[in-house]
């Protein structure tokens, strides 16, 4: 059951990361256009997204079980990305927040910029947590050691197979 849940959250976090990134990008591009700010500065807002994506790829590539098989971490990732997407969508679709009507873009930038600090805190928090958890189960060293163990085991198995006596087929008539 836990394995199924973990597998579900593991794949969901990649999808939700994309959704959170897309919705945030939409709101922030509109916000920067509205404020006539330099679009280049958007990169700084999306640094934690990029860092987290790189960390996820490293986790996947090195099969770091401290992260990939950690249900709590995967669930937290899903919750964070869902929250980010929810906040972005709320700033676009919640018609009862009056600031949405005050500016002509029909997006409540005031609300979203209030939430940006929380979003950054959560994203950097996930990066730090991922960093620690990837080393908790050996990190990169653990895999190399495992490889060494594997090759040693293979050699031993080979040797054992060579030393094993070959079974001789005995003719029934001769023995009789």
């Amino acid at each position, binding site marked *: 059951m836990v394995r199924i849940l973990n597998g579900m959250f593991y794949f969901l976090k990649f999808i939700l990361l994309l959704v959170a990134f897309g919705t945030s990008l939409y709101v922030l591009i509109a916000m920067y256009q509205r404020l006539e700010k330099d679009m280049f500065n958007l990169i700084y807002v999306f640094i934690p997204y990029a860092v987290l994506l790189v960390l996820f790829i490293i986790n996947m590539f090195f099969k770091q079980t401290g992260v990939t098989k950690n249900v709590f971490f995967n669930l937290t990732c899903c*919750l964070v990305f869902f929250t980010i997407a929810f906040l972005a969508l709320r700033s676009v679709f919640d018609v009862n927040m*009056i600031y949405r009507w005050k500016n002509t873009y029909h997006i409540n930038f005031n609300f979203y910029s209030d939430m940006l600090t929380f979003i950054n805190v959560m994203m950097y928090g996930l990066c730090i947590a991922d960093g620690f958890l990837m080393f908790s189960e050996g990190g990169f060293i653990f895999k190399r050691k495992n490889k060494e163990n594997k090759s040693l085991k293979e050699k031993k198995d080979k040797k054992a197979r060579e030393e094993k006596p070959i079974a001789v087929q005995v003719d029934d008539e001769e023995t009789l």
Partner: protein
Amino acid sequence: MIKLLKEYIKVIGYTFTGLVFGAAFFLLFINFYHYKDISTKLERKDEDIQTYKQYVNDRLSEVKSITESFNPNLYKGPKERVMLMTINSKLQLCVKEFEDEKLNEALDKKELTIKDVYNFQNLYRSKIVNGCIVNQLYDLGVTGNEAKFHDADLAKIAPFLKLNADSIRTDDDYVANVLLNNGSYFFSSENSKSNIYEMTRDSFYEIRNSYTKSIDLLLEFSRWFKGIV
């Protein structure tokens, strides 16, 4: 030693994950509750809507009958005919603004959210405050050398006109500012929930009071007009 270090790393990793989990959980649910809170609807009684509609219609029909009864071609009094024609057309334009379909729809709504109140306030400001009070009646309230027409009767009613127009002009400023407060506020509580409901109710009735004041001013002015023609 390494095993112990790994255990510590694990604990720190889980602590950060827990903190982030808490923050995300808090932010998600506080926003969900705020979303629910600001969707609160104010329900108006049918009786209230009908009574007020009757009140407005009575006043508007009186103003209309006064403007329709005036015929500049038949007027043989001492007053300047151009002035009377101007005042008459100003009153007619005001009635037109009061009869605006969108404004009446907003006024007759049975269920009101804060967005409806904001729309009503915008319509009231553009149609009544700007379209009627400021554009039509305000310049008639100017006295002295800057006055448009130099008439003794008009000079008598001018201070009343100016005073009321000034008051109506600034009446909804406070409401407009209060309404904008719900956009960035997100820490929901029972107190804020009731505040939002009260804000919807109070803002609506505040704008409606100002609307009543405007229509009363229009009626008073048209009665004065009837008296001089």
